């Protein structure tokens, strides 16, 4: 299986689903990333995947898509481009240190334990200037103990999910890659 086919399948689609795209570019006219003064056309991403062209990890949508689904609401075919971007991010292993800490917390406790996430991401938060916002975050901060959730039944949960029928697990091991 082509890598692009795999990414499309991860997003819950088949390659043929993208063939209906009319090229109307209405997704580009509403895309939130364009509010960041970038010249983005989400339809180009679908075309690239349809033509089995690999998408670079520096693609502006891969980096900046906000998962807002404005493109989906506007699209005549309701194609969920944010789901495609999320599959791309996953396959290209694009995650900030904060997101990695977030996933790490879920793997340990089954839940997001915020003090752990902040602790693990401290070098990133310091470097990227998040500390100056700490004063405003005092309302949010709370010290509490993590609740230990019973280990997730990984194989069952994925077998029951849509699409790949358990070809990858929650550690991110991709069975078909």
């Amino acid at each position: 299986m082509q890598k692009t086919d795999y990414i499309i399948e991860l997003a819950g689609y088949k390659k043929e689903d993208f063939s209906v795209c009319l090229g109307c570019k209405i997704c580009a006219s509403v895309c939130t990333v364009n509010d960041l003064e970038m010249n983005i056309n989400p339809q180009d991403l679908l075309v690239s995947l349809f033509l089995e062209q690999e998408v670079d990890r520096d693609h502006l949508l891969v980096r900046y898509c906000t998962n807002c689904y404005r493109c989906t609401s506007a699209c005549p075919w309701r194609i969920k481009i944010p789901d495609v971007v999320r599959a791309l991010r996953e396959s290209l292993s694009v995650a900030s240190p904060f997101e990695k800490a977030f996933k790490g917390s879920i793997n340990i406790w089954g839940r997001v334990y915020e003090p752990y996430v902040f602790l693990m991401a401290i070098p990133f938060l310091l470097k990227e200037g998040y500390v100056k916002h700490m004063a405003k975050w005092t309302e949010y901060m709370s010290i509490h103990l993590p609740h230990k959730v019973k280990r997730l039944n990984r194989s069952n949960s994925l077998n029951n999910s849509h699409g790949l029928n358990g070809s990858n697990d929650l550690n991110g091991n991709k069975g078909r890659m």
Partner: protein
Amino acid sequence: MNYGYYPGCSLTGSARKLDKGVRAIFRKLGHSLNEIPDWNCCGALEYGDRNELIGLSRENLKKAEGMCREIVAPCPACYKNLKEANSDANFEILNPLELLDKEALVSLNAMRDLKGKVFTPYYGCVLLRPEETAIRNKTVMEDLITFFGGEIEGEKIKDRCCGGNQFFANKWATEKLSTLILEKSRGVMVVFCPLCHMALKTFSTKRKIIYLTDLLLYLTGDNNAL
């Protein structure tokens, strides 16, 4: 009425205020919320591909089997993920906003009103999009505010994106998007999403940004709600 309750990670952490508010309002409405035992994270918007997200939420639905038919999920991301995982429709997944109709508002027995006050209701993305997982009544916050005499501003920005999803990856992007929203709004901003609340609050200067539940508690006489 008895509902299953899925608070999700943020409502047990940084969005405890929303959790307390939802529980208090449901108590006032005469409903009971029974927390799903041993629930796990729904994956929010960050956890990997769609299969992984749906898998996590299916685990939660399995844990709710036998205890309830209707599950209340206040966090918009949890609500969306549970709704997507509920493909065989064993449960009805509800957001508290869907239970706040006119009848419910009357039974709140409000002791105050909002006359002369200006509000900007802000829903953000996940509550309104995509259509199949969106809340049914997309003007519920406006209905509520005007019902109690308040004025509405900033309707055109209610479904814009605050960039909360990029907060811990590209902070400047969230700052730019949130600032655009803050500039186009007036009065008190009323939100229901923990991520929107955090993003807007971080980049606002003097604006008051509150959860809808805070507003409801204020109406029912709670002096510390706002």
